[in-house]
């Protein structure tokens, strides 16, 4: 009888070598993204650093004299946008998530709403701009104001907030709720004092990520008519405005090299706001996952 050995040719050495090659190429590919990120940041920094100064933050943009241009109007426009978006999108988003997760029965309407939100999350931001143009600028006669811009951006980030909040609420174990109901609490009381606090870190992470998305968007704001050259700071929600991403876009679009440098400097400021925000959100998520009591 032939020994079994002859029938199998396991070629272990070859499989091992191929396995090693595969591992290292996967690792290398993973680092490509990180590598590009590093090149991008270094590039932007080198380009923009010469123009960066405190005056840069305090001056208005200038078309004629790039040396004295600044991002004051864009910076304040962005701040106004964040403030209004925070006030509008966050409560509505969390409230929607609370309803869908804690109150709604699992029926066709709820599933339809859920599907709807998932689809909205995938709609391009410029389509939200078109909606904002028709709804806020024209129909509600808000004009090209910072309020119209903020409302448009709120609609854009609402699905993100809702989805993140729903996940955070769903992650709270049922035993929390049962314990409260068992003591005679109403549903709202249970949610407010037991479930929401437990889900808060996840919700906050989602809100921060949503807001950082809002800060970076230019397309919807261009759609509603935010101007690219604005030399004043909005004094009220109905004033015209511009925002950081729009200013960056405008400066990139010009042929003169000095404006490109200004764009890079503005990017540094923008990333200086966004990267810490993202880092805080990611760190909070990691911290929450580690210390989860359940």
């Amino acid at each position, binding site marked *: 009888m032939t020994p*079994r*050995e002859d029938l*199998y*040719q*396991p070629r*272990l050495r070859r499989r091992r070598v191929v*396995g*090693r090659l595969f591992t290292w190429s996967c*690792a290398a590919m993973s680092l490509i993204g990180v590598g590009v990120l590093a090149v991008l940041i270094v590039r932007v920094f080198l380009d923009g650093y010469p123009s960066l100064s405190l005056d840069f933050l305090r001056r208005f943009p200038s078309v004629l004299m790039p040396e004295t241009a600044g991002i004051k109007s864009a910076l304040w426009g962005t701040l106004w946008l964040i403030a209004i978006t925070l006030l509008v999108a966050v409560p509505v988003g969390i409230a929607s998530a609370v309803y869908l997760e804690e109150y709604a029965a699992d029926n066709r309407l709820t599933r339809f709403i859920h599907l709807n939100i998932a689809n909205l999350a995938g709609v391009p931001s410029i389509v939200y701009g078109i909606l904002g143009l028709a709804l806020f600028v024209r129909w509600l006669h808000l004009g090209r104001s910072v309020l119209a811009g903020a409302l448009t951006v709120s609609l854009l980030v609402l699905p993100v907030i809702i989805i993140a909040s729903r996940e955070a609420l769903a992650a709270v174990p049922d035993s929390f709720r049962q314990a409260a109901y068992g003591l005679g609490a109403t549903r709202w009381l249970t949610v407010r004092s037991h479930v929401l606090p437990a889900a808060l870190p996840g919700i906050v992470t989602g809100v921060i990520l949503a807001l950082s998305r809002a800060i970076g968007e230019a397309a919807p704001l261009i759609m509603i008519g935010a101007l690219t050259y604005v030399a004043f700071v909005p004094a009220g929600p109905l004033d015209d405005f511009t925002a950081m991403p729009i200013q960056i876009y405008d400066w990139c679009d010009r042929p003169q090299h000095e404006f490109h440098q200004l764009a890079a400097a503005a990017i540094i400021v923008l990333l200086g706001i966004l990267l810490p925000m993202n880092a805080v959100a990611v760190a909070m998520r990691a911290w929450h996952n580690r210390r989860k009591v359940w």
Partner: protein
Amino acid sequence: MVMVTDSTSAMPIGPFVGPLPIPAADRTDSAASRSGGPENVIQTRDLSISYGRFRAVRDVTLDFKANCVTAIIGPSGCGKSTLLRAINRMNDFVPDCSAVGSLLYRGRDVYAPECDPVELRRRIGMVFQKPNPFPKSIYRNVAWAARINGYRGDLEELVERSLRQAALWEEVRDKLNQSAYALSGGQQQRLCIARAVALQPDVLLMDEPCSALDPIATARIEDLIHELKERYTVVLVTHNMQQAARVSDRTAFLLMGDLVEAEATDVIFTRPNDKRTQDYITGRFG
């Protein structure tokens, strides 16, 4: 810093130093027939296995004889599965697991640096508690391991042979291209057995193979084990004492990581030496 944890690649390339010993069934002159008794295929000597600081298996010295069914019984959490998984080094995938002592397969230390776990698992196959067929067709499930290991013979013949050995051939012969998931639980488990024997291993480890199955499927697999021991050495972990009594030739009783007693099955179940064995068998504790 070790960047990549890959237990199989941490070992040097290559099988055991020197060719692996040929299993008894293939030798033209079997050592068993020469020496007049079954040889020890697997031996442990003072084997202790720990997860971190918790010792799950403590100083176990045990022999597993060729073409025998050896059952390992004991209450939940006593270390039976840990011991079983140490034999084909499946414990390598548990991050904190470490082993002290020796575990010999045909005289060679399984935990020695020159032992390649992948090569080892070709000789020592395993069937798990819950059937885990691949989401592929029945044919491809059985043929998978043979293909990967460069089987040069007739694959269809191998698949048929393996399915016959697992007593599944008649039921699936005309639907080999169907998904394995269309089979019942008992059939899936027999498919997993067929998959394991397709590699023509030396030893078959079975980790509570019937615990997820109904009594009828269980009975079929127990009959199967009787047939399997003609060709393979079988180590069976079970929490069902009656199953051990029905199926095995030798039984080892593990309690809290310690080997209390290991004897021929009829001896253990009728005149055990240790009082703890007696208590367990009579149901004093479970």
